[in-house]
């Protein structure tokens, strides 16, 4: 793998075409992902438009500070990832490995915070299907809020987990010197994926933590 010219696959004419195709393919995949999450965003929008009060009451059971901190952590990880891509492009191998490691670290921190929030909700009896004991304002629709919350953050968390796996593989390959300024498409593509994960959270955060807090019945 160290020999970069070998990285050209037989079906392509040149490296440029191959790189273009790979990035374009990744963007199409991300468009797919937008629609994948989109189905759930659609459910959220419909229910939120119907039961704003229940969503408001439920929203107050989420920890705003934790939400903000995890948003910041994901943004930091996105930044380290971007720096990683920059290091790859400039051929700074050690920096690349370092930035990938940092990204993984922040991703893990994000997951830890998220798990602790889930655990808290579980203990408070706000986890539908496992422990749901909420009896105050409009419990049915509050349950709906938490169903959507766990479905969407769960799907997002699974993407974070997969992302950690991908980044780990990339870090190992980078460590072994698989990439250089002429060939770092896999790093760039993994970066796109990771930024997308960040992107989803950028919307999940306001939808669940922010916009309904002051609607209370």
């Amino acid at each position, binding site marked *: 793998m160290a020999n970069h010219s070998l990285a050209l696959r037989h079906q392509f004419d040149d490296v440029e075409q191959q790189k273009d195709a790979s990035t374009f393919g990744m963007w199409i995949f991300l468009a797919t992902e937008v629609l994948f999450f989109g189905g759930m965003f659609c459910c959220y929008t*419909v229910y939120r438009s119907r039961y704003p009060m229940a969503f408001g009451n439920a929203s107050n059971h989420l920890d705003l500070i934790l939400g903000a901190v995890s948003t910041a952590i994901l943004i930091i990880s996105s*930044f380290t990832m971007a720096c990683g891509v920059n290091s790859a492009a400039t051929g700074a191998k050690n920096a690349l490995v370092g930035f990938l490691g940092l990204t993984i670290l922040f991703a893990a921190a994000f997951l830890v915070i998220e798990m602790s929030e889930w655990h808290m909700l579980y203990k408070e009896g706000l986890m539908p299907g496992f422990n749901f004991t909420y009896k105050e304002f409009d419990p049915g629709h509050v349950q709906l809020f938490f169903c959507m919350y766990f479905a969407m953050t769960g799907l997002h968390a699974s993407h974070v987990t997969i992302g950690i796996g991908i980044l780990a593989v990339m870090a190992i390959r980078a460590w072994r010197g698989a990439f250089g300024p002429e060939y770092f498409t896999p790093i760039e593509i993994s970066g796109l994926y990771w930024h997308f994960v960040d992107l989803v959270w950028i919307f999940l955060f306001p939808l669940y933590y922010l916009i309904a807090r002051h609607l209370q019945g």
Partner: protein
Amino acid sequence: MAEHIVTKKQYSYVFATLLLLTFITTTVGMMDLGRLNVVVALVIAVIKALLVVLFFMHIYWSSKLNKLTVVAGVAWLALLLWLTLTDVLSRGWLPFPGK
């Protein structure tokens, strides 16, 4: 397409803006502004998303085709939301009680 290498400095500016926006949106979220809360939160989210897509994800420097792909993804999501909400929100728009 010519390779465009974004410097760490450029990334840092974007990063700082993102953190700042997160701080603003959180602070505003704590205040009760009525309907404005939703607007502010979503506008800031869209700005943040644009920053990530344009600069972290290099769409600003990308080919038209990649830009088009992003637009298509968002457009189809908008389609899904628009036509679903056409049903959900339109009760009573026409004079058919309950329909």
